[in-house]
C-alpha cells in the first residue's frame, strides 16, 4: 500500500485525539513514529538501532513533508506553508507538539528543493510533466525545475525507484529543503 499525505494527516489526527504518548507504525517498509514529547520515541528504532536524533536539529528529513498538509511541528512552526502569509502557521504556545518522522532509510527517498524558488513539474507549460505518480525514475532523471528569478535549475531524482507522491502544487513557491517528491526505492 502507499500512504498519501491525507492518510498521514488522518493518522496524526487520530493520534492527537488519543491519550497516547507515542505511536509507531511500520507499513510496507515505511516506519512512521509519532510522539508528543518532541523527541523520537526512544524504543521505536528497534528494527534499526540508531541513536535518536536531536529534535532541535530540525533537519529536513524530520520535517513534516513539505506539502504542508500536516500540522506544523514545533521546530517548523515559523517556517510557513507556501500559501499566503496571512494564515500564519504558528504553533500555539503550550500546544502539544507532534513530531512526524518518516524514516527515509526504510525504502522512501525524499527529493528536496535545493533553493527557494518556484516549483515547475514540466520543462515548459505546454510540455508533459517530467514524472507522474507511479512512474519509474533513475537517479539522474530530472524530476522538476526550481526557478529562481529566471534561472531554471533542474532537480534530479537522486535515487532510482517509483514516484510515490508529488508534494507540491505546480507553480507554487518552495523553500530550501522542502520535500518535492517521495520515491519508493528499488528493491
Amino acid at each position, binding site marked *: 500500500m502507499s500512504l498519501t499525505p491525507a492518510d498521514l494527516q488522518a493518522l496524526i489526527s487520530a493520534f492527537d485525539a488519543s491519550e497516547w504518548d507515542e505511536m509507531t507504525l511500520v507499513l510496507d517498509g515505511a516506519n512512521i513514529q509519532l510522539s508528543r514529547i518532541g523527541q523520537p520515541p526512544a524504543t521505536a528504532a528497534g528494527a534499526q538501532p540508531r541513536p535518536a536524533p536531536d529534535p532541535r536539529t530540525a533537519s529536513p528529513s524530520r520535517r513534516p513533508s513539505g506539502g504542508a498538509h500536516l500540522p506544523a511541528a514545533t*521546530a517548523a512552526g*515559523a*517556517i510557513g506553508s507556501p500559501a499566503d*502569509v496571512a494564515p500564519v502557521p504558528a504553533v500555539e504556545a503550550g500546544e502539544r507538539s507532534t513530531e512526524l518522522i518518516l524514516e527515509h532509510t526504510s525504502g522512501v527517498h525524499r527529493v528536496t528543493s535545493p*533553493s527557494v524558488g518556484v516549483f515547475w513539474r514540466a520543462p515548459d507549460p505546454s510540455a508533459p510533466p517530467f514524472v507522474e505518480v507511479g512512474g519509474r525514475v533513475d537517479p539522474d532523471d530530472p524530476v522538476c525545475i526550481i526557478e529562481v*528569478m529566471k534561472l531554471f535549475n533542474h532537480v534530479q531524482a537522486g535515487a532510482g525507484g517509483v514516484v510515490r507522491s508529488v508534494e507540491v502544487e505546480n507553480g507554487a*513557491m518552495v523553500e530550501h*529543503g522542502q520535500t518535492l517528491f517521495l520515491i519508493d526505492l528499488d528493491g
Partner: protein
Amino acid sequence: MPLRRVLVANRGEIAVRVVRACADEGIESVVAVSEADRDSRAALVADRAVCIGPASATSSYLDIPRVVAAALGTGCDAIHPGYGFLSERPELPEACADNGLVFVGPTADTIRRGGDKAAARQLATSLGIPVGAGSDTIADGVTARDVADRVGYPVVLKAAAGGGGRGMVLVESADAVEAAFEGASREAQAAFGDGRMYLERFITRARHVEVQVLADTHGSVVHLGERDCSAQRRYQKLVEEAPATAVPLDVRKALREAAVELARALDYVGAGTVEFVVDAETGDYAFLEVNTRVQVEHPVTEMVTGIDIVRAQLQIAGGLPLPFSQDDVRLDGHAVEVRINAEDPYRGFAPGPGTVSRWVEPVGGGLRIDTHCFGGYRIPPHYDSLLAKVIAHGADREEALRRLDRGLRKLVVDGVPTTVPMLLAVIEAPEFRAGTHHTRWVEQELMPSLSAPQATPKPAAAPA
C-alpha cells in the same frame, strides 16, 4: 505607497530589529533565513520565515536572485537589507526595481557614488569638505617621499584597492618612506591584484565621529546628531556613544552640516551615515566615507533623539514624508552602546560558537538590549559573532555609563565566551571615562595592560 509586507534579507539582531520596526509600523514581516537560521529568533518573531538556501551565506543571504525570489514568492512589496550582506550592493536595488519591489534604502546610483572611496572623496572636496591631507595615487617611492615631506610625518600608505584596515602601512619618518612604498605596493599587488597606493597624513590621536542623516523622497534631509565610535580594535567598533561630547561643539556642528550637504549632493534617500576622522589634538576633521545603510550603532542615536531610525526607513521607503523637521530634532542626554561578541578576549578573540545555555538580560531604567539570543540558542558557526548590543541612556554621560556598567555586570551568558570582560575594562578605564581615548587606544594601551581573566572584572553570573 505605504508598505504592506517587507522581506527582511538579513539575520541576527538586525533581522529582529527590522521585524520589530515592521510590527510597530503595522507592516507584515517575512524573514529570509538560511538552513542554519530556521529556528532563529528572527524567524520566530516574524510573521513568517522562508528558508532560501543552505547555511553558506553565498548561497543564501548573499544570493540576490534567491532573496528576490523569496520576496516575490511571499507577496512582499519591499526588501529591507539590514546592514552587511547585500545592504551596500547596488545590484539589489536594481533587481528590486526590475521586479516591482521597493528597496528600503537609497538608489543604486547613490550607493555607487557614495561607496566608491575615490569618487566620494572628490565629491566632498568639490563641496569644500576637508578630506585627509595627502595625495591621489602615487607612481613611485620618490613621489611618495615628496608628498610625505609636504604633508608632514607620520604618514600612512594605503592601497587604493584595500579597505577595512587592510593594505595600510604606517611610516614615521622620511628615511623610511621609499622602502615602505616599494614593499607596500608589492604587497598590495599580491593581495589585491592592484599595486596602486595613495598617502595620507596619519593622525596619531584620531577620533571617529559619524553623523546620522535621514532623507525622504520629498526633498527633506535632516541629521540626527553625531556618534563617537573611537573605541575600536583593529578598526572594528567596540563602543559607540551619542552625542560626541569629547569633540568641541563647533566641530560637531560643522560635521553635521557637512553630512547634510553631502547627502543632498548624493540625492540621498533613507538612513545613512557620513563618517569623519577628527584630530583630537588640533580639532581638524576630514571626511572618511559614506555608509548607505542602517548601522550597527544606530540605537544610541535613537536613544538621544527619540526617533526610531528603522521605522523612519520604512516610512521613507513607503513614500511618506519625514514627520519632523531639523528644528524638531532634539538631543536628550547621552547614550552608550557596546557590542557583545561570542569571542574570547583572552584567547586572541577566537570566536566561540556553541550553545548559549543561559541568557538572562539585565533590567533597569534607560537600558535597551538588541539581540537575537535566548537561553538554548545555538550560535551557528557560519556567520559573525555579534550576540547582542547593550545600550544605556542617561541624563548625562556619567549616568549612561553607570547604567551600562551595571547592565553588563548583570547580563548572564553561559555556554559561550563573550567580550563582556574586555568591554567592562574599556568603559571603566580612566582614559575612556575622561574621553581622552582615540581609535588606537584599545590596542596600543588598554589591551597590553589587561591582565589574566581572574584579575579582570567579570560579569556577575550569580543572582544578587
